[in-house]
């Protein structure tokens, strides 16, 4: 009888794949179903945003920041505007800060819906993804009422925001967050989060200890899923976040070990609930009168110097490091995103893991290609 050859296979989980979140490529070296190593190959969505920033004026770069994380455009816009405002010393009016918080938290809710829905879809649960997207449709309607766009919003401007609240927005938004917090999330948890198949697929998969998470510079829900209670909105408050009462959900090994994929998934579900609280408080307290924007000159120059501002975006902390030489264009703009660090940990997490678990790990880290590649 012939001997079976057993050797390692080198497989390509190519950029064109239904289970990778965008154009991401992995080279898998596997012994049957169990992987020895999965090496990420990134750069398929590299558009040279950092080089483009050096060629165009500050205000013109705002639409490009939409596309750094197109699922959470408002948050990316806000991070860039906050950096330029910090270095240039531009004051933002109070009403504009409220509008930024409202749109930013609504966008966080929508982004988490996609992140959680995509994880469930990759694991094979097709139904909850559609439910999550249906709720996100209300968000799309709201944000279209606000700024005219459903995906890449370009809503925040240097010095404020671009539009005020239209009539009917406040009632519709309050109805939306009430529906989410008191009806939809509990229903969704019954259907998906506490489903025994999902728990068995995600528990004890991709365990990241707090020390490893900090060493790889993981941030946002990935870091909080490992038990580290650190959120920039509370620990390094920016804008007007100190005025709102909300909690920080942290992974606690509910069904497995602290820092496994289930913790990262459940932290995102709980963050949706907390964001609903913030939106409700902000809508009720927002002043009716006030400017929404501080005018900046057309030939806007930023004084010489450097600054780094980081904000809590849905996929981690997004920071912009800006070096200015006193001109109308930046001298260097470095974009630091949460997904870039999350991608870098996948190679270490994938040793000795089955291919199906790799899909669960990538989904639970909520990696999107444009943030990785810029």
């Amino acid at each position, binding site marked *: 009888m012939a001997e079976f050859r057993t050797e390692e296979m080198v497989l390509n989980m190519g950029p064109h794949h239904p289970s990778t979140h965008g154009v991401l490529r992995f080279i898998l070296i596997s012994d049957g179903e169990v992987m020895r190593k999965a090496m990420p190959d*990134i*750069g398929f969505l*590299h558009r*040279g945003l*950092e*080089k483009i920033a*050096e060629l165009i004026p500050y205000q013109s770069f705002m639409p490009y920041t939409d596309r750094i994380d197109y699922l959470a455009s408002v948050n990316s816009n806000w991070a860039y505007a906050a950096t330029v405002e*910090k*270095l240039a010393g531009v004051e933002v009016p109070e009403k504009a800060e409220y509008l930024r918080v409202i749109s930013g938290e609504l966008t966080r809710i929508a982004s988490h819906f996609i992140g959680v829905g995509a994880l469930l879809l990759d694991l094979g649960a097709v139904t909850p993804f559609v439910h999550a997207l249906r709720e996100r449709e209300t968000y799309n309607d709201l944000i279209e009422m606000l700024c005219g766009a459903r995906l890449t919003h370009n809503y925040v401007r240097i010095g404020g925001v671009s539009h005020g609240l239209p009539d009917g927005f406040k009632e519709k938004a309050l109805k939306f967050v009430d529906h989410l917090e008191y009806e939809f999330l509990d229903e969704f948890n019954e259907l998906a989060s506490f489903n025994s198949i999902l728990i068995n697929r995600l528990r004890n998969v991709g365990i990241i200890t707090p020390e*490893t998470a*900090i*060493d*790889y*510079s993981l941030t946002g829900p990935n870091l909080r899923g490992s038990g*580290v209670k*650190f959120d920039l909105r509370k*620990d*390094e408050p920016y804008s007007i976040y100190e005025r709102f009462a909300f909690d920080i959900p942290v992974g606690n090994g509910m069904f497995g070990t602290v820092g496994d994929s289930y913790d990262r998934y459940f932290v995102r579900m709980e963050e949706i609930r907390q964001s609903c609280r913030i939106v409700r408080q902000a809508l009720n307290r927002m002043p009716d009168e006030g400017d929404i924007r501080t005018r900046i000159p057309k030939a806007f120059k930023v004084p010489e*110097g*450097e*600054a*780094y*501002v*980081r904000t809590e975006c849905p996929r981690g902390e997004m*920071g912009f*490091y800006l*070096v200015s030489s006193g001109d109308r264009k930046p001298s*260097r703009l*470095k974009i*630091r995103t949460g997904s*870039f*660090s999350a*991608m*870098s940990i996948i190679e*270490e997490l994938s040793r000795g893991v089955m291919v199906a678990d790799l899909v669960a790990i990538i989904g639970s880290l909520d990696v999107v290609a444009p943030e990785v*590649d*810029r």
Partner: protein
Amino acid sequence: MTEPPGLGLTVEVGPESLPDALAILKETEGLKFVQLMFQTGLDLGDRLGVVYSLYSFEINSKVSVKASVPKEDPVVPSACMIYKAADWFERETYDMFGIRFAGHRDLRRILLPDDWEGFPLRKDYVFPEGYGGIKHEREDICP
């Protein structure tokens, strides 16, 4: 030493002392700058610079370390043994600026294709005419 907003106390050190400085900042009790917030390169005209920006959860403060090397032969010792996050950050800095990190376990291009020529974020970068034999400007189909 300066303190730009968001970077904390910023010091410039010689490139050879970078790993020691970072290790001291990371491991000393009472400092514990364990999170590498970001690492990047800078084009300073005739020299190339690197910036490492660190954060300490324990004392809630930041510190940044800078170094600069000549443009003709930019070599900086790698920090990937100290911070695992520095691995990919340094690969990106190499990809964009051409700064070589001595002691890095796998220094190769990360965002651009492996056969790309030139280092885009340098100020004297010349935009290529085409890639893979196909020109960007196609007068025959789009005058």
